């Protein structure tokens, strides 16, 4: 399996720039996810790799084979040897399951016995060998999706490209399909680029994730890195839930800084590099916030830093935990805990310094995505 490299790939539709000099490298056998909100350029990137869109400039190489290089080289999609699973599946309704999967093999002049064997092999792989003779309209959505996957794997491809393949499946099926696809991908070791806007999908399946926004790369890293060490507030906010708190920082002792939040008497102690000063934004994940139940022994909070009292504004029971929206000074703080607390009561919460990430002030292009 080759690796995949994109260098300075740019694409505009009219005045609308959808990719800004994008660089990306996908390692051999890796499952690499492009994650971002709608319109961030992830699908355009995928289609540029597949050859269905021509970028305006840049280069795309599969291993040492250049498939796109500015205006000089633009290998047609049929010569790129990719397997693509479309969001709509695009299973041909006039062909049986067998014929759908056999199509790429026919085009490659595979002899009939070898073709039949390979079709069977791939269909076994996706656990559909018993439905070989069926037509797409006789299959469920999940089955159609697996036909699309089998067809994409049949040739076999150098590169597997998945465009939001689970978005048409229900939640349970989606979760199962995720695990199943991940296991399958690891078993056959095909280099895979996966496009999704669903952070759970990205976190649970990927070797590495690239978070994109408005045609730019925000961060590339393993799921853990993306979640725990987000490169900026956008990434922190897009991947998982996070509290974003604006404040003013001043240098503190021992490599820490103190941050004053509006309406809060005491500053928060945060870990800081050199010279943290002026306007900052803090992020803290709800599940990292320690909740001390009201009326608990004062000893519980002894020695803890960053303890504050908050008032519960609303609560939601989500089965395996409670989610509270609380008032922290003039801000909103989302807290996640197993402890039941009544609406309107007060909580003592602790924001451990190592759970807090500090970022610079908001810039217009770093605005978090619209929650709608």
């Amino acid at each position: 399996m080759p690796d995949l490299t994109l260098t300075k790939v740019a694409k505009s539709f009219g005045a609308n720039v959808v990719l800004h000099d994008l660089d990306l490298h996908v390692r051999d056998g890796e499952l690499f996810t492009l994650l971002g909100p709608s319109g961030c350029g992830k699908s355009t990137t995928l289609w540029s790799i597949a050859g269905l869109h021509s970028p305006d400039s840049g280069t795309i190489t599969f291993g040492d084979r250049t498939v796109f290089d500015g205006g000089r080289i633009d290998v047609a999609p049929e010569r790129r040897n990719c397997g693509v699973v479309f969001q709509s599946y695009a299973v041909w309704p006039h062909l049986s399951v067998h014929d759908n999967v056999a199509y790429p093999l026919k085009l490659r002049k595979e002899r009939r016995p070898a073709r039949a064997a390979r079709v069977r092999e791939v269909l076994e792989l996706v656990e559909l060998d018993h439905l070989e003779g069926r037509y797409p309209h006789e299959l469920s959505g999940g089955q159609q999706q697996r036909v699309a996957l089998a067809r994409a794997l049949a040739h076999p491809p150098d590169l597997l490209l998945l465009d939001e393949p689970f978005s048409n499946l229900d939640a349970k099926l989606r979760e199962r399909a995720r695990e199943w696809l991940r296991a399958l991908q690891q078993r056959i070791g095909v280099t895979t680029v996966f496009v999704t806007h669903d952070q759970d999908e990205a976190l649970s399946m990927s070797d590495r994730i690239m978070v994109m926004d408005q045609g730019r790369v925000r961060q590339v890293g393993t799921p853990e890195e993306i979640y725990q060490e987000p490169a900026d507030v956008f990434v922190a906010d897009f991947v998982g839930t996070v509290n974003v708190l604006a404040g003013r920082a001043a240098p503190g002792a021992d490599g820490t800084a103190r941050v004053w939040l509006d309406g809060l008497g005491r500053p928060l102690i945060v870990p800081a590099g050199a010279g943290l000063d002026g306007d900052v934004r803090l992020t803290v994940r709800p599940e990292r916030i320690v909740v001390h139940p009201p009326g608990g022994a004062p000893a519980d909070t002894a020695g803890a830093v960053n303890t504050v009292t908050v008032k519960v504004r609303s609560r939601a029971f989500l089965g395996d935990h409670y989610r509270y929206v609380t008032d922290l000074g003039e801000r909103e703080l989302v807290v996640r805990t197993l402890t039941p607390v009544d609406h309107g009561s007060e909580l003592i919460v602790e924001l451990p310094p190592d759970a807090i990430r500090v970022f610079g002030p908001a810039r217009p292009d770093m605005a978090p995505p619209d929650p709608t």
Partner: protein
Amino acid sequence: MTVTAGPRPGTAAPESGRPRGPRRLSVPATAGHYLIWAVTLVVVVGPVVPIALASLWSAPLYRSGGHLTLGNFRDLLTDPAWWAAVGNSAAFAALTTVSSVLFGVGAAVLLTRTDVPFRRLFAGLLILPIMLPGLVLIVGWMAMWAPSGYVSSWLEVNTVLWFPVDLYTLPGMALVATTVAAPTVFLFCRTTVLAIDPALEDAARSAGAGPLRALVSVTVPLLRPAVLTSALLVFAISFEVLGLPLILGFSNNITFVSTYLYDNWINAAPPNQGLVSAGAVFLLVCVSGLLVLRNRLVGDASRYTTVTGKAAATRVVGLGPVRWALAAVLATALGVLVVVPLAGVVMSAFTSILTPYVTPWSVLTTANFQAIADHPIWSESIVNSLLIAGVGGLLTTAAIAVVSVVAHRSAFRFRGSLQQAVVWPRMMPGLVTGMAFFWSFAILDPSGAVRGSLWGIGLAFAVRSLALGYGVFYPALAAIGEDLVRAARTSGATWWQAAMSVVLRLSAPAMAACFVLLFVSMLNDADPAVFLVTDRTPVMGLTMLQLAATSTGGAVAAFGVIQMVITLAVLGAGRIFLGVRAHA
């Protein structure tokens, strides 16, 4: 690694970096696109050049001498008879278009998406008239519904009812034309209705719309491209129609554009060629305006892409008791418009005289058919028309399919001009198309080898039928999701392979419908043959027109019955063909 996605036994190691893409002879798609584009333009647009020349030249083109002049246009535009003809044609075409669209769209929705009883029967009756040449229907209408017709007289004598429309007026002619034009609209819209994803309506239902409201607010607007395309076609067909005014307009002296041109070419001595050419050019200018308008109105075709990669089935909306009332209305309308006139054709064909005062049984005869068999030119015209309809229909269907796919599913630079080229020949009156080919052959083929053969007439008929076939084919093409093609491309198919194995394969039902329509249209076409026909190449449509102009309906009706039989056979075969279509 138990199951490999890597190299299979017998294939080269991938480390060499050689792409394992499909092996084949690689012809760039663009070269093919340019070739198709050039051929289409030459065949469709090329023949117009001599008409433009002739309209600006003082002498006929086949004669030497002459000079550039605007005199032909001056003569035309200052002739009050011409303007009267334009007014009549426009009023007639507008009336026919409005009534056909109302009837055709209503029927398409009612008969495909609701539970009105006898849907299949009604749909079958509705499309029956387009199988027959307009002339035969006119004969049937005259026999039954004219003021002295069989049924209208019978009604007046035996009941308190009477037939409210005089056939020999503009509304009367429009009513007859609607019988033929409404099925065209119906067919266009039905193809689209069947392709619409039921989920779109379900979405409206879930938003709070009742089933009928959902049908009207979602499905009907999605018909816009089909309605616009078909309405434009109906308008153009009605604007150019020759047989109807020639026969029905005669007694009240109602002149149409077509009869104006016909008279000035056929009956004027010497033929007023420059004037007729100028009239043709005038029409072309108007029609180009109409086409621009159509494109503005239809807008972005992808807005109407309704089938995605996911397969689904059509559902039926329940109307409750209203369905019986609707069925009664449909039955009455179809009875008056279709059943009675067609019965008139059959009765005329098998009787020596048809009047309410003589029992038809007493005057039964097969003499009308015997006359056709005995007349060498008449019988030969049937064989010739079958050849043109069969071979020509197939070739034209293939051409329409390939041109449409290039025009709509490629990145070809000039695809827009291809879309226009396919639609606009229908806007030319058949007479003008015939004239155009007559002159093109006269200039390019002085030996007369093509003009004297069936290929000449066949080509003119084919060009004239392009838009008709395209109108059936295009909505189905637009309904095929782009992802299905992309999937083929990424699987290793070239543009042409993807077009063949996915797009054309999925549009096979539309191609079959296209062929059936082309077959019927080319079998019945007459107008272009006026200038191209020779003693050795008679065709049925023209033979019938000449016959209808000079004699009573018996032999024409017999011709009509023969065409009905042939057409039903073709339709039966089409049904078998459709039966084995895609499992979509």
